[in-house]
């Protein structure tokens, strides 16, 4: 079961997630090396692949505030991470849907690093504390794009499914 590998405060900005000095690096294949680059220990663990796929970052309110840079999403997706936060900034949420980064809105979540979380369709279950917290679901159409891995794979799949 996926674990919380990083517990963060409110208002985590895209400058923290993906520092501006790396903005000239844009390819999703290259951005993961700079995830939380200035949190050097955490970045080193990510690059060393110390965490299994699906590992979770827990944020507070307004996660991903600031710049519109999509690298802030592709850098986390590249490590197969998921984000659970009390609230998420508008552009970061939209970019997450478009790139297929798994994000979950959970306003009341209580979890600490090391806790095991499970996602049901409408709840986040903290298996370490035995408590359940309601999820705010995305609209089904938006969730469909995220689950397809992003807008490009989603669009491609829809185009292929179209009768010729």
């Amino acid at each position: 079961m996926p674990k919380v590998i990083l517990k963060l405060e409110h208002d985590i900005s895209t400058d923290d997630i993906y520092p501006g000095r790396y903005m000239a690096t844009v390819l999703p294949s290259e951005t993961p090396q700079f995830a939380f680059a200035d949190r050097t220990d955490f970045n080193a663990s990510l690059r060393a692949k110390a965490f299994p796929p699906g590992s979770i970052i827990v944020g507070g309110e307004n996660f991903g505030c600031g710049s519109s840079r999509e690298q802030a999403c592709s850098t986390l997706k590249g490590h197969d991470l998921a984000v659970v936060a009390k609230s998420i900034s508008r552009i970061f949420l939209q970019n997450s849907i478009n790139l297929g980064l798994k994000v979950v809105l959970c306003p009341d979540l209580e979890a600490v690093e090391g806790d095991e979380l499970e996602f049901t369709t409408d709840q986040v279950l903290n298996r370490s504390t035995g408590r359940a917290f309601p999820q705010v679901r995305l609209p089904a159409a938006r969730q469909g794009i995220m689950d397809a891995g992003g807008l490009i794979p989603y669009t491609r799949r829809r185009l292929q499914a179209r009768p010729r």
Partner: protein
Amino acid sequence: MGQTLTEKLLAAHCGRDFVVPGEIINATLDLVICHEVTTPPAVEMLKKLGITKVFDPSKILVTPDHFVPNKDIRSAELASALRRWREEQGIARYYEVGNHGICHALAPEQGHVLPGQTIVCGDSHTTTMGALGTFATGIGSTDLAAALATGELWFKVPETMRIDLEGPLPFGVYSKDIILALIARIGVDGARYMAMEYGGSALQSLSMEARFTITNMAIEAGGKNGVMPADAVAEAYVKARTDEPYTVFHADADAAYASRFSLDVGALEPMVALPSLPSNGRFVGEVPPDRMDQVYIGSCTNGRLEDLRIAASILKGNKVARGTRAIVVPATTEVWKQAMREGLLEIFADAGCVVSTATCGACLGGHMGVLGPGERCLSTTNRNFMGRMGSTKSLVYLASPATAAATAIAGVIADPRDYLPRPLLPEPCPADGKPVLVAAGADEYLWGV
């Protein structure tokens, strides 16, 4: 039921008489602005989908701005990808290095922004252009790809927060102080996913340049867009730049606002937002006089001509303090040239400032003034997040160009009212966007910008 300005703008772009907050609409786009950092990834996505043509080259504006001139090989690759793409697509509205500018300042300055438009750009400070009565918002590269391919984009209609700016702006207080005070009041997510619509008596007294500073920072309160009605000042600004026709929209008197409040700007003093959130605003008198290693005057927030004039009026005949570096970055090439003609560049150089070409540069920790560990910078930019301008061990303080200039001279955070030249005679108020002096009492003058 009446509609807010943002609802009117969105309804007009989806063929509807009205829209309601929360609904999803597909809106046509009048202007898509492209810079070198977020556009090349969008272009790559289009190539992968086999889409070879943009929807309408005449509705696209292109300029490099983040790392001008190229800061390294990576940024050179992005800039040349942008250049090749705009050539292939036949996009005429292209501003090459030497003619370039920070896109949010360049687009309105060059007459491409018209009241009533919908505008998107792969950049969060696109909200700036809402000051001309447009719906303007920032998007990521994937949405930019969709916008470039189709000329349309889906939007959730935001709720609107209405802010009425009332009262006369006191001496030494500027539009930057207004927006810092507002964000201090509502917080960095106080307007999350909302439209921030402005009105009130103080708004009418602000020049266009001053207004852009306020809408620029909508995103710093989490807003989707910032918007102001296009009044006589806005129309004069637009008409001085283009003959293109446009439509002016107004909020209805009975519009439904999610929240509405007034901000008494007459009670404000110069503001400083302490590290490391834009919402940490305090009156300058309440801020300890910390030593500053660097002062930065520029960016899409405060790099326009009026900003440089105010800074120069303080720096003229003075010297930047020992131990402090002052960096001036005009927002566009045109601002740079006009500052040269007016002698402002000479004032900055004589004071010991470095003047750079237009670039987003150090605002986002890119180049031309990046901070090292332990350094402090007072900046006229829009964000002071941890690590924003360089090292995560550096600290950024946000303030107006006047406060920045005063701080450059003092070497510590300083009150611009102690340095601003006191005008001898009030002047009548022109509508041309220049700083004007307004008589306020027997011995008191207001510098209304």
